[in-house]
């Protein structure tokens, strides 16, 4: 199946990897966990560059934020005490739903993002956390917001660049934060039909002062429902507002029909999951509905 592969490179430094990627150009693919590369056979690929041998596997605090090396596996995210304590554990929860244990031992967070599947479970969470990506080629290194990284289904603006790490900035200061990750799939570890990550912060009077609602599998790429977020700001959460916000979510998604679910079902479920997510966030933030 992969007899068209001419060479499998195992660079031992980032510099070597970047020079190799420049040399092989668009005939090369980056390998970390390999799960997506093997299941999406691309006969134009001639060279594989394994990026797991120069220390991109780490999770650490960075100031008030966090950095995650791109080859960190889903299993590592799921079990990391640091990630379980971050934002109510929604990133750990999302990672724990990315396929079976076997897949989670292989699949990496960098791959989940760079493969740009609209259904990527960690992508919705990382959008809600305002994540930035550090990407590099042999000439330069740059930061790009995850929200600006996608250009279409399975397409990114990364042009032959290597994703080095994911940066999660400091969470909003002060208390009364709530978080939720909701996933609808046929089984607990199946691909998402819809996924939603949400975060809320309430002020002392219970008014929402910060909100994030991100969704996956309901558009060409994981997306933020910014109109729905704006509806929440400055208001106290109640059933009426929840209904308005979930209606706004339905307006902002653009799902397709496929063998797993119809567009109409995905749209309905976007609202249902967003409402569930906001209820969970509100409870954690101490907001009474």
């Amino acid at each position: 199946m992969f007899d068209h592969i001419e060479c499998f490179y195992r660079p031992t430094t980032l510099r070597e990897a970047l020079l190799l990627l420049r040399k092989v150009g668009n005939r090369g693919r980056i390998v970390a966990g390999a799960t997506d590369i093997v299941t999406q056979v691309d006969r134009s690929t001639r060279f594989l560059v394994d990026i797991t041998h120069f220390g991109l596997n780490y999770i650490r605090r960075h100031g008030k934020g966090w950095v995650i090396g791109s080859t960190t596996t889903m299993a590592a995210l799921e079990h990391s005490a640091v990630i379980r304590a971050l934002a109510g554990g929604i990133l750990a929860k999302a990672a724990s739903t990315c396929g079976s244990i076997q897949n989670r031992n292989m699949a990496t967070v960098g791959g989940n993002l760079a493969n740009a599947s609209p259904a990527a479970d960690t992508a919705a969470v990382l959008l809600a956390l305002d994540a930035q990506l550090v990407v590099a080629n042999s000439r330069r290194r740059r930061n790009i917001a995850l929200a600006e990284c996608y250009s279409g289904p399975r397409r990114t603006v990364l042009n032959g660049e290597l994703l080095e790490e994911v940066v999660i900035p400091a969470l909003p200061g002060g208390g009364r934060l709530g978080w939720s990750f909701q996933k609808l799939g046929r089984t607990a570890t199946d691909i998402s039909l819809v996924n939603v990550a949400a975060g809320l912060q309430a002020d002392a009077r219970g008014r929402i002062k910060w909100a994030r609602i991100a969704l996956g599998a309901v558009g060409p790429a994981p997306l933020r429902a910014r109109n729905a977020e704006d509806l929440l700001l400055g208001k106290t959460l109640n059933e009426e507002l929840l209904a308005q916000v979930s209606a706004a979510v339905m307006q902002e998604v653009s799902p397709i029909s496929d063998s797993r679910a119809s567009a109409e079902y995905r749209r309905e479920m976007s609202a249902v999951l967003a409402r569930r997510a906001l209820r969970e966030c509100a409870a954690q933030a101490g907001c009474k509905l």
Partner: protein
Amino acid sequence: MNSMQLRLKVNGESKQWTIAPGDLLLDVLRREGYFGVKRGCETGECGACTVLVNGKPINSCLMFAAQTEGCEVLTIEGVAQGEKLDPLQEAFLEYGAVQCGYCTPGMILSAKALLAECPDPTEAEVREALAGNFCRCTGYLKPVEAVLAAARVYRQVGPSSARPRAKRRSAPLGKKR
């Protein structure tokens, strides 16, 4: 066709194999005679091809062989100690958890990885650990019971060594019975 050298340990034995750069681990292991590694869906869904790489279960159909350079691979052939079956294998027999047997190597390896990390699992933890191993004959009740029973044996006497005697090519599971 380009070729490359792969050095790794399989069931405790050092190996050096000539592989093609695009070879999948599943294909290389079967080519080298480890027929306990089953070819199933080839898309990482069914878990029949499960092996442990550095102690962790992975789908060998989704991994390039070249990724396992320097790694320790455990296949079902390396689970028994000589003629003595591992408590997990004994339990699968005793509980009737094997019907056609195609999913069994993967299930036992997934269970082995679980018990190495979690010697006293709950039923839910066993089901979670086996969630990536599909069975199309018996269902999951008997394998789950078998793993829980094996966990009790492990806690009493410990697992049999994962390493077979050196220089002995273990026969496939079927031949041993």
